[in-house]
């Protein structure tokens, strides 16, 4: 086991990791930027090293500084958390070169899963269903159209080099296809100087369901059920829950086994997440794999009783998984709300500033993961997430009631938050019925869509 771990992150996840280490009797080193000298993670850790200026490019993304801090403090492992360097294969490889354990998969696996088309190919080879689409790029509308007819409309036209929605169009029929193909390709040519296009089946308003997996160095891979992350605003998750109401025991087993197969196919190690699209007919398709711990991991912890961060650390230290698949029993229902420093009335503009008054909810089945405290000044340089409020009830109804109550008890003064927006979601009839998909916020809260 490690004697000292450096946490290469900030905010609530850094606090979360430090707490796990404290419980495990592992010393911790926090790194912080000049803007974070009063941050909770820096005060909670046994040691803290300032690694650079406020801008994350100079601090939390500065690999040399973080590696140097690790060497100086003689930490033997780095936990990258999420965001920042967590999916940077370069960093993972550098850690290895410096005799430092990177708590996560190897750089090669990060690379393989980070490359969307390669990940897709790997999954297809492993028999994991993927959204039907062209295997090779297409260059002309005619080529694309014949393929589109084969898989059936609606289809998604995607630029091979695309990103940020550029070169991406949905076509519902043949006419639309011809028009959209040209414009998407043109956009791609102009933005990326690339006319290679892909055609994919368009899954309309799917549920975003992801499976948590754990894999150790000894070839053991387990899944710990799913999380429904369909409540998203512009591809940002807002609220997550586990289990997903649309998944029954059979489907869970099937999807879980698929996730395990996917993880085994790439020789995965450590904690990871397989994201699926689940359509209304319960067909599921592999979307991508996240090679790190995720923001919403607590809902899985609440229903499984496992501590995923501790598992990550144990796996990285070479220990076998503490559980086998049969030992994993999910009970009750958990919901997580992300509370951000942002103003929904002003297009979710981030609202950094000083927290003048803070009251956190508590009680049975209520968990708060946060780094904020009274008089803490939220810096403007980083992600606006302040706090994760997680509740666990015996069933979904209880969890929803508990979350409403806890949200009502949560008081953050001095800065704007999205608390009221979360409340609105919780109180929405469609949400209550569990009839949600990725179209939930755009459909029912169009005022917040843009």
């Amino acid at each position: 086991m490690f004697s000292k771990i450096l946490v290469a992150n900030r905010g609530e996840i850094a606090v979360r990791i430090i707490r796990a280490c404290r419980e495990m009797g592992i010393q911790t080193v926090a790194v912080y930027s000049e803007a974070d000298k009063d941050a909770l993670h820096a005060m909670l850790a046994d040691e803290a090293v300032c690694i650079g200026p406020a801008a994350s490019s100079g601090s939390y993304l500065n690999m040399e500084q973080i590696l140097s801090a690790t060497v100086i403090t003689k930490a033997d492992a780095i936990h990258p958390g999420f965001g920042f360097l967590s999916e940077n294969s370069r960093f993972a490889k550098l850690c290895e070169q410096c005799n430092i354990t990177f708590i996560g998969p190897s750089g090669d696996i990060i690379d393989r899963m980070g490359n969307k088309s390669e990940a897709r190919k790997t999954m297809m080879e492993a028999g994991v269903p993927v959204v039907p689409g062209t295997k090779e790029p297409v260059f002309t509308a005619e080529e694309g159209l014949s393929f589109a007819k084969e898989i059936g409309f609606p289809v998604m036209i995607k630029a091979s080099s695309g990103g940020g929605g550029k070169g991406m169009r949905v076509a519902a029929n043949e006419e639309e296809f011809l028009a959209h193909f040209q414009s998407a390709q043109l956009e791609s040519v102009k933005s990326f100087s690339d006319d290679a296009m892909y055609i994919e089946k368009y899954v309309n308003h799917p549920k975003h369901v992801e499976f948590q997996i754990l894999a150790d160095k000894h070839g053991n891979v387990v899944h710990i059920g799913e999380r429904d992350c369909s409540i998203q605003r512009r591809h940002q998750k807002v609220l997550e829950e586990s289990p997903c109401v649309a998944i029954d025991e059979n489907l869970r087993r099937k999807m879980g086994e698929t996730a395990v197969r996917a993880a085994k196919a790439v020789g995965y190690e450590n904690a990871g997440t397989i994201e699926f699209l689940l359509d209304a007919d319960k067909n599921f398709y592999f979307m991508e794999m996240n090679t790190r711990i995720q923001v919403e991991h607590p809902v899985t912890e609440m229903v499984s009783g496992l501590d995923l961060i501790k598992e990550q650390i144990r796996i990285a230290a070479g220990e076998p998984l503490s559980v086998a698949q049969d030992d994993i029993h999910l009970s009750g229902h958990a919901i997580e709300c992300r509370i951000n420093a942002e103003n929904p009335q002003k297009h979710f503009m981030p609202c950094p500033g000083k927290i003048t008054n803070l009251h956190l909810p508590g009680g049975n089945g209520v968990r708060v993961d946060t780094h904020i405290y009274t008089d803490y000044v939220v810096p403007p340089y980083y992600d606006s997430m302040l706090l994760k409020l997680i509740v666990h009830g015996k069933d979904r109804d209880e969890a929803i009631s508990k979350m409403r109550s806890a949200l009502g008890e949560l008081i953050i003064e001095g800065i704007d938050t999205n608390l009221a927006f979360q409340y609105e979601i919780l109180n929405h009839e469609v949400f209550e019925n569990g009839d949600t998909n990725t179209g939930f916020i755009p459909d029912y809260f169009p005022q917040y869509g843009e």
Partner: protein
Amino acid sequence: MLRNMFKKTYTKLEPERKSPEEGRQPEIPEGLWRKCNKCRKPIYVDDVKQNFYVCPKCGGYFRVHAYRRIEMVIDEGTFEEWDKEMPFANPLNFPGYEKKTAAVKEKTNLSEAIVTGKGKINGLDTVIGVCDSRFFMSSMGSIVGEKITRAVERATEQKLSVILFACSGGARMQEGMVSLMQMAKTSAAIKKHHEAGLLYITYLTDPTTGGVTASFGMLGDVILAEPGALIGFAGPRVIEQTIRQKLPEGFQRAEFLLEHGFIDKIVERKDCKSTLAKILLLHNPEAAMAADAEKKAEASDRKETVSVMAEEVSGKRGKEEKSSRRKRRKDAEADFTGFEKTEEGKKPASAWDCVLLSRRNDRPTARDYIQSLFDEFMEFHGDRYFGDDGAIVGGVALFHGIPVTVIGQQKGRNTKENLKTNFGMPSPEGYRKALRLMRQAEKFGRPIICFVDTPGAFCGMEAEERGQGEAIARNLFEMSDMKVPILSVVIGEGGSGGALAMAMANEVWMLENSIYSILSPEGFASILWKDSTKAPDAAKVMKITAKDLKKLGIIEEIIPEEEPAVLENLETLTGIMSEKLTGFLDSMKTMSGEEIAEARYQRFRKIGA
């Protein structure tokens, strides 16, 4: 505040925990990263190698070892080294020189400060020499001089181009006057290579100073340089000590030399190979023709998508630019009064209309014609004396696979561009740049195409100081007997001697709405009638339109303008020009150089009394 308030926990649990593998201490391995000596930031050695030895953080250039440079530039497996081992010489019996040389050889694994040989760049043969700064700062001793001379001589024999990557502190002190003589020796060999009509390219890297600058470094037909490279004769420290002044920032850097007309182009290291390959291609008519044919075949393969896309791209671009263009046209029309009155589906007729039309700022400029008519245009800069004139754009391009030299007088579309192009009014350095490029065209047997569009040569103190009159005269003098075809096309204003200095051609063509005149109608009116407002009347009597001049036998062809030329109908105009140009070049094909020059002589000889 919570600082120092949290209780520690780790000592309470299993106090003697140990790392799983003893002795596996975290450490940063030697050489994983280094500090950039320019930005002082840590950089990964691997990244630097991947990035052509350029700092990924600050873009600073590191010096490159000779063999690495060859790897970067020469096609894999095609390099054949020449004269690798040469017997050591110590002409002055300089004490300790042999010992020091042996030590440097040992340390660098080099036999001398330059590596020479032959190889291919994108399949085209060339002789190459690369200096290595690790060896006595790549100073030119007798072996360096000898290796260069031999390489150049062999290139002359084998009719190959030569590319030399210069980097040097200058002459090698330990060899005294013998070293100095290498400047003469190498220059003389290059002259012979030049006389054989062969291409010589130098690529100046940091630092190129002293005797190397003052010999083979500055003699390239094409002189390229790496960004930020120090290039000069006297080193900056020596200059500072001599004049007892601090030199300004950027003095003697590649950018400074470009501005002062001594280099053709600054080429980033990553583009080095592709640029050299393109220059070789432009100087190799067979390869250029083959590449052109290949490109056309490829284009026809994917013609459909490309044409559709090109159309859309231009359509989109058109839309974006339309509003500003419309505004420009409006501005232009404000002082253009004749057009509206005469318009009845009919083109403008009066000379004054042509004057106004030829000056409109939405009229295509030389660059537009060059881009539309030719492929693979590569611009070259500088007159090699004083500066690089933005009013003249010139370089080499392909016309249906035929290498041609193209030179144009360039106007700007807005104030910013016009600051650069001086409103299309060339200075002496512009005419000298044009002449330099024309001489090269003659050397390599390329036709010369000139685009004339100037209100006149620049009237200014500086222009006179540097000999505006001499520059124009020199062009007329030299162009008169050039042994390659020269064609000049007046695309806008052909203002006086400033225009003629680029129109001493076998044929002169004019766009229908362009003008070609002894001076501006305003100037004419003010000299003759002491009233510049009578310019419209002056335009009429001066006989400056294409039609009038054709009647006078001053020009050969008129390129019709259905509508006044603008970017939107540029393709139509260049389509006509392209066809006529093919005809022109065909007609010259059968003529010898002397005949071409004689025809030009006779063309001007017969004008006038």
